């Protein structure tokens, strides 16, 4: 009898679990591989909230995407690659249209799996850079910018403030000692050969709580510029240590994953002037945020408590939501059906064209760069901007327009790396006409 009760209880639990996780058949399903726990939760929460809130906004204000409700399937990865793969496996059978892995490690693991399953992946500003080559990576997208674009944007900014000449300058790269942190090295080395600056590589081991040696080295060698390629606590400690040794903040440039409010606030006023790259705007000064307040936050339907709206990482998740919804709309339009499949979603992503009119129509005028995705280019033109932290007002200010990166250096690297991947995996390049 006791065994029977346990079995009945177990069945009930399983059934209720299924009821909670299986979406209604007509829903458009967008899994969210989020991390709300663990050492990187502080960054994972606003991004996941932004992504979820955009979908909620579309559902509440517009009645969904082309009349179909969007459903977020959230799965906790803890920024752990193994858990991320488990999340993919457990959600892919529920109608998943596109994955945002939100981790370079998870992206690398999912590239072969998702390609085999025919489900597109959008690794926005992270992941495998050479996935921009759509001829080889037919299901992987990394628009609007990738790591190598980021490295080039940092160098372009140095060129701009030095009148186009950085020959003889010393540049140090302080990077997370992982696949993610090592991504910009090759590009920075190629650009060093082109522009004549010297590059010093300074790795920091995970988690980066202690960086005394690295910053003593910087103090000794006095580079003209420091580029930061960190994540999590490594960013906060690096900015604090830079302030401690009185390194000029205007010469300290972080990649977009080292440029959120979380990274600069612990250093207080000493972080003033720190710069970071970005591929979208910050703040709430866009019409869509009025709708968000009305339909989502005030209605008590926000994923968080609304206090992160407008921050860098919230807006990044929100922007990811916007790009996903626009691609889904396009997919519906191309295939003439509201109930799209992952293959149709992929077609929508490949045909995506984000221009001023599209952003304005979505209430996001000038929020990000204008770009176009194509069969052979899944990364777009790689436009990016530089933002600067104003400690007094506690906000980021865009310093530049969205500018181009040095594709004359980056494109050969993308071609070389993707060709290597194709050779390793016996992939024949698609004919993109």
């Amino acid at each position: 009898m006791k065994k029977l009760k346990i079995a009945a209880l177990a069945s009930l639990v399983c059934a209720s679990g299924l009821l909670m996780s299986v979406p209604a058949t007509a829903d458009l399903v967008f899994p969210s591989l989020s991390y709300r726990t663990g050492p990187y939760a502080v960054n994972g929460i606003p991004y996941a909230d932004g992504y979820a809130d955009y979908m909620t906004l579309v559902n509440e204000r517009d009645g969904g995407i082309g009349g179909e409700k969007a459903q977020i399937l959230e799965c906790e990865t803890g920024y752990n690659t193994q858990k991320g793969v488990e999340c993919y496996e457990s959600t892919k059978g529920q109608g998943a249209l596109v994955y945002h892995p939100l981790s370079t490690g998870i992206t690398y693991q999912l590239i072969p799996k998702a390609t085999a399953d025919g489900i597109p992946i959008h690794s926005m500003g992270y992941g495998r850079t050479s996935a921009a080559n759509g001829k080889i990576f037919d299901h992987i997208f990394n628009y609007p910018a990738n790591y190598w674009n980021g490295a080039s944007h940092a160098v372009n900014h140095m060129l701009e403030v030095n009148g186009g000449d950085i020959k003889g300058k010393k540049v140090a790269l302080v990077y997370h000692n992982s696949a993610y942190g090592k991504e910009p090295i090759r590009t920075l080395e190629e650009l060093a050969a082109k522009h004549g600056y010297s590059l010093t590589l300074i790795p920091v081991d995970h988690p980066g709580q202690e960086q005394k040696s690295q910053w003593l080295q910087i103090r000794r060698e006095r580079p003209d510029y420091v580029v930061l390629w960190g994540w999590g606590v490594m960013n906060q400690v690096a900015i604090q240590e830079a302030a401690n040794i009185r390194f000029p903040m205007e010469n300290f440039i972080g990649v977009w994953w080292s440029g959120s409010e979380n990274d600069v606030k612990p250093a207080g006023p000493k972080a003033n002037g720190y710069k970071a790259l970005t591929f979208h705007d910050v703040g709430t000064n866009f019409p869509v945020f009025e709708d968000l307040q009305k339909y989502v936050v005030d209605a008590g339907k926000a994923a968080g408590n609304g206090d992160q709206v407008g921050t860098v990482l919230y807006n990044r998740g929100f922007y990811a939501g916007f790009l996903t919804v626009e691609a889904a709309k396009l997919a519906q339009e191309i295939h003439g059906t509201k109930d799209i499949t992952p293959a149709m979603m992929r077609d929508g992503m490949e045909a995506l064209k984000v221009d001023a009119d599209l952003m304005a129509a979505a209430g996001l005028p000038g929020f990000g760069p204008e770009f176009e995705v194509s069969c052979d280019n899944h990364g777009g033109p790689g436009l990016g901007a530089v933002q600067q932290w104003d400690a007094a007002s506690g906000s980021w200010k865009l310093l530049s327009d969205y500018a181009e990166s040095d594709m004359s250096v980056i494109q050969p690297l993308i071609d070389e790396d993707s060709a290597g991947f194709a050779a390793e995996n016996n992939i024949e390049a698609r004919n993109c006409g």
Partner: protein
Amino acid sequence: MSPQFLFTIEVIANGLMAGVMYSLVALGFVLIFKASGIFNYAQGVMALFAAMTLVGIQNGQVPFSHLINAVFGTNIHHFGWNLPAIVAILITLVVMVLFAILVERLILKHLVNQEPIILFMATIGLAYFMEGFGDLMWGSEIKILDVGIPSGGSLWLEEKTIGWAAEGSNYYGMYIDKLDMIATVVAILLVISLTLFSQYTKTGRALRAVADDHQAALSVGISLRKIWVIVWTIAGFVALVAGVMWGAKSGVQFSLSLIALKALPVLILGGFTSIPGAIIGGLIIGVGEKLFEFTIGPLIGGATENWFAYVLALVFLVFRPQGLFGDKIIERV
């Protein structure tokens, strides 16, 4: 003096300071292990929890506000006060006493006479529970810790030492972070206080008696449960100090719990039962890893500190398994 020589001195000085920071974490482990034979896996999370509680109380944050608001539909987050640091620290200490009592009542009391591995596993459970409980209580966002501790390089020291190198050489004076200097003073005071407490107070002597022999201590009327509460309270206080010093660098956030990783090689090297061992072990690890990174690091690509600390500890382990100052365990068959 040559700049290279001065840089080496600077690296050693900063290594010593970093070692003190590691020792602050290691001390908490030693206190609990010495008194109860428990390797407290939750020590790093205790540092995080104590620092979160301190910031929360200081800023007047309502604990469990997200939960309260979700359940009751309210929108409360702050009490509207900002307490002076010293008041917040005192209240946090009271919280850590309550925490120690709860740990004893809810966990340790039920595990008396269990194998050390069972107690160790109980502290793993405690660590994961506290991670979630801390987030639920205070939220998971990064909290800025401001208890008035200055940070940044000491200008005074830089100006005094800039003339030590020949004029025109590439030397900018000796760099030592003011925060590290304060941490050193705090660590010295902490060790002196702990030593005086254990040598000259009745409770301290009881602690030492329990550490030496549980059975003998019980036979002369020392309450093991009371001693455990006291030890966990002191470990909670040490965790607060470590949390404040580390949290001042990076803000109070989840990663603070990972500072325990820096304490493990210190414990292996200094021994699990010696307070001076924790200090000396910390200093050796701090100087060793910084010097290695300075001299050998550039030749092999850098980022050597994490693994080198463990290699150094393992070398010591081969020759002195009990650590430099640990008690030698001889078990007769």
